C-alpha cells in the first residue's frame, strides 16, 4: 500500500537535469506544464491502467530519471499524439516519451518482445518479416512469393545491416541484462 503513504517531496530532491536534457532535445515547453491533466484525460492507456501522463510530466520536472526509465509505464503509450494535440500549453508530450524511451534503452531497459522486434529488423530488414502462411497467400494471389523488398535482394539487406552497424543499433539493443 505504498501508494497510500503521503510523500512530501522537498526541493532538495528535485534535479533539473532531466527537464534540461528534454528542453535541449526539442521538448522546449516541458516546464510550461500547469498540471491540468488534459493529457491524462485524453490518453487511451490511462483509462485502463495505472499509468498517468500528468504524473509522468511531474516526475520529469522533479528529475526522477531512474524511476521513469525503469518503469514499464513508459511503454504503455501508443504514440497516438492525442495528449500532444490537446495540451493547452503546447507541450510535445509524445515526443518527450519517445525521447525518454531512447534513454531507457540506452540504460538497458527494454521489454523482451521489443528486443525481438529489434532483432527481426537487424536480421531481416523487416520488423515484421514474411512467414510461411503469407508466402502461400501471396502465391494464391498470383503475387511473387517474396515481395520486391529487402526480402528479394541480398545486396539491399546487406546495405541495411551495414547502416544498422554504423548507427550502433545492434550493440544498443543487445546490451544490458535488465530485461524484464
Amino acid at each position, binding site marked *: 500500500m505504498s501508494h497510500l503513504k503521503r510523500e512530501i517531496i522537498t526541493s532538495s530532491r528535485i534535479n533539473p537535469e532531466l527537464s534540461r536534457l528534454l528542453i535541449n532535445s526539442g521538448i522546449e515547453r516541458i516546464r510550461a506544464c500547469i498540471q491540468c491533466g488534459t493529457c491524462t484525460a485524453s490518453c487511451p492507456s490511462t483509462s485502463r491502467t495505472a499509468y498517468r501522463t500528468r504524473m509522468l510530466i511531474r516526475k520529469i520536472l522533479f528529475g526522477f530519471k531512474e524511476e521513469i526509465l525503469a518503469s514499464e509505464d513508459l511503454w504503455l503509450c501508443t504514440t497516438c499524439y492525442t495528449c500532444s494535440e490537446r495540451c493547452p500549453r503546447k507541450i510535445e508530450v509524445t*515526443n518527450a516519451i*519517445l525521447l525518454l*524511451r531512447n534513454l531507457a534503452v540506452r540504460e538497458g531497459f527494454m521489454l523482451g518482445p521489443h528486443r525481438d522486434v*529489434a532483432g527481426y529488423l537487424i536480421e531481416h530488414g523487416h*520488423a515484421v518479416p514474411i512467414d510461411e502462411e503469407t508466402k502461400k*497467400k501471396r502465391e494464391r*494471389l*498470383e503475387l511473387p512469393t517474396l515481395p520486391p523488398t529487402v526480402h528479394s*535482394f541480398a545486396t539491399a539487406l546487406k546495405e541495411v545491416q551495414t547502416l544498422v552497424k554504423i548507427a550502433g543499433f545492434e550493440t544498443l539493443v543487445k546490451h544490458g541484462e535488465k530485461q524484464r
Partner: protein
Amino acid sequence: MKYAFYLGCIVPNRYPNIEKATRVTLPRLDIELEDMEGASCCPAPGVIKSFDRLTWLLLSARNLCIAEEMGLDILTLCNGCYATLKEANTVLAGNEKERRKINEMLSAIGRKFKGSIKVKHVAEVLYRDVGLDAIRSSVKRGLPIKVAAHYGCHILKPTDLREWNTVEHPTFLDEMIEATGASSVPYRNRMMCCGAGGGLRSGVLDVALDMLREKLENMRQVGAECIVDICPFCHLQFDAGQVQLEQKFKAVYNIPVVYYTQLLGLAMGLSESDVGLRMNRVAAASLLELEKR
C-alpha cells in the same frame, strides 16, 4: 500519375490481399505504381523510433534515397510508414546538420539524401489527386452496407507535420467510403486509437486488446457491418486482434475488417481473387454475398 510504391512490412508480409487489391484498383484510376526494389522496414515509428532515433532516421533516409533515385514521389499504404517517411523527409530536408550527419553515414553504402521527393499516403492521393468524382465513376455496384470508418492516428497527427489541418473531426475517409455507395456511420469516440501503436501490441498485448475491445464495442453498438481502415497495422489489430480477443477473453465480435482499396475493389466489381477478402482472419464472406443483394 506515377508513384514509387512503398510496401513496408505488414502489407507484403501479413496482408498481401491489401497489396493485391491496391495493385489492381489504382491503375483503374490512372495511378501507376513502380516497386521500390530493396526497400526495408520504414522503420516503424512506434518501436524502432522508440528504441533509437538515429537508427530510425538513417534507415528511413535509405528508403527515401531509393525513391529519389527513381525520381518519383512515394505512395505508401500504412499510417506508420507514412509517419516515418514523411517526418524523416521533413527533418532531413529542413535540418542541414542532421542531413550532413546522415549523409556521411549513407556514404558507406554509396547513397545520398537530396530532399527531392514527397511522401504521400494512398488516402491523400485518392482524396486529393484522384478525387471523389473519379472514385464515384469507377464504381460498378453500390455497396449497401453500414461501415465504421477508422482513420488511425498517424495519418492525422502530429498536425504540424501533416496536411489535413484537422484532428478531432476529419471527414475525408467517410467521404471516400460514401463514394463507393456504402454509408459511414458515426460511433462513440471514433477517433480513439486502435491500441496497436507505440509498441503496445508487441510489448503489452492485454492493454492493446482492451483498447481494441472498447473500439469494437462502440462499433457494434451502431450496427456496423464492417470496419474500413487505411492502415495495415490498425488492420492487423482489428483482424488478428478479434481472434485473440475471442481466444483470451471469450469476447466475440465478428466484424469483418476491410482496407479501403479492398472496399474500392469490391465496389468496382472485382472478384475475390483480386480483393482477397476471404484471406482476412475474420470472415468477410458476408461482404462477398453483396453481389446477390
